[in-house]
């Protein structure tokens, strides 16, 4: 991996040291295993896929697609079905970019951005 690639990654996403530390359980909300701060995984977009479980917040009819990472521009997103139990932590979400139909969902130390026109539109409608 070239240093230029590493640099652009680090510039895009500030290091999130706690995000890779499951050992902080018992303090704050660190009991949820966090995606590792992994250069290769980030660049390949696998971090976001691993966080697909938070789709439950959108309900069963939401067809969302993981983008791969908070700032990933991955476009070959696949539909991800919810798996595992619902998150126990508070789930927060916001419309990241309405023009691109991007919604970011945060749960525990996870952050996932979905490109989902229906969910985006429903949130925008709810905000009117």
């Amino acid at each position, binding site marked *: 991996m070239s240093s230029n690639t590493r640099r652009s990654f*680090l*510039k895009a996403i500030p*290091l999130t040291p706690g*995000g890779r530390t499951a050992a902080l359980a018992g*303090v704050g*909300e660190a009991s949820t295993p966090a995606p590792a701060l*992994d250069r290769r995984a980030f660049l390949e977009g696998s971090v976001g896929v691993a966080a697909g479980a938070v789709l439950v917040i959108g309900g069963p009819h939401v067809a969302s697609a993981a983008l791969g990472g908070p700032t990933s521009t991955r476009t070959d997103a696949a539909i991800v079905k919810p798996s595992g139990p619902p998150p126990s932590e508070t789930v*927060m979400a916001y419309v990241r970019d309405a023009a691109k139909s991007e919604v970011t969902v945060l749960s525990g*130390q996870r952050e996932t951005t979905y490109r989902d026109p229906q969910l985006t539109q429903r949130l925008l409608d709810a905000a009117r």
Partner: protein
Amino acid sequence: MSSHREAPEISQDPVADNADTYAFVSPDVPDTVTIITNYVPLQSPAGGPNFFSFGDDVLYSINIDNNGDALPEITYEFSFQTELSNPNTFLYNTGPISSLSDPNWNMRQFYTLTRIENPCSDNPQTCVLGTMLACPPCNIGPRSTPDYAALGAAAVHKLSSGEVVFAGQRNDPFFVDLGSIFDLGDLRPFENLQLIPTAAAPGVDATKALNIHSIAIQVPISELTVDGCKPTNVMSSKAVLGIWGAASRRKMRLRDWGQQECSDAGPWVQVSRLGNPLFNEVLVPLGEKDRWNASQPVNDQDFAAGVQHPELAQLLPVLYPKVFPNLAALTSSRADLQAILLTGLPAGIVPGFQNNTGTVLADMLRLNVAVPPAASPNPLGLIGGDAAGFPNGRRVADDVVTIELRAIAGVTYPLVDKSYTPDAAASLITQGLTPAPGRYLSTFPYVGDPYDGYDTPSS
């Protein structure tokens, strides 16, 4: 200064404000390095009833680069939790606090310490070194904390992994004439020569009666170097560590007191960092300071212009007409400052010394651990002929303000251009401040006991 309230956003968030970072070979345990990062700056000792503390919702980290890539190979993380024994009183303590387990102490804080090796790799190795490590209380006064030194000493924890740690209130080791320097760059020795002159007056130590919160850790050198060695060759690249502190908050916070809920969510996002003193304070323009705090040292090429052509170096000849004529004529890129602050000094600049980490421009405190502690430390560090001091790491009593002001004024430019003659005034710059005896400790954590609020009601 050094980075107390240095950027617009972090100035509103003092518990996450990394005000200073220190790193030095421990003078009394020279096979170890001590690293100190300070937060919650400019505390009035009498600031009760909710005395100062670390943030339970802040993740504090100390980062060490040992291979020159400006990325951390080792990170120590400190996360805090506050326990309230009795929520039905407004008092911090309901009687004298005689020990860290004294039931009279109502609001105490603990922390978890985690060491992460290769945090940026595919396989970071995480190890929890300690949990429920107790902080000392704040120093309140003779009735509440009658033997504060004992409380502070009890909060020094020796871990089975080899590290020694402390986290809690201290007096601020940083000494600076804040009131002068931020009054349009006044330098008290020359204030009669300033564009707006005033009568000469001695320097004023603005932080001499203020407290701060310190996170200090003492680590065997062999636990920090790239191959577990204890370097003895100053010229070896393995002897140089790049060090910086940082604080992060969760990306989102929900406040809903009606539902009795205050929650955080999302990844940790860095909101403050500090390597070299005064970097963000003086060399980064106001509009970029918040971005600098959120960025990583490996990306400091973005801020190199402020080092290569520092604004203060251009202002000094204007503020002090005819005092800095050579500096006024110096328009070249400041390769000296770039070496000192962004790459470390390479071999061949200062005989027998180097603390170079390679070509990546990164604001890190660079410590050559093969340089032994000085028997008689000079607070002017390397420019005072003492290679064990700043900018080779930073000791608690180093006069970094004088060192950096002199460097910016041109004293260090001959290191890269021997034809340049610094202005006579440049080497005369001094804060004129001498910290009072007792401000520091001779043993870990080296930063002295905090001032109590009863005897130090205000600064």
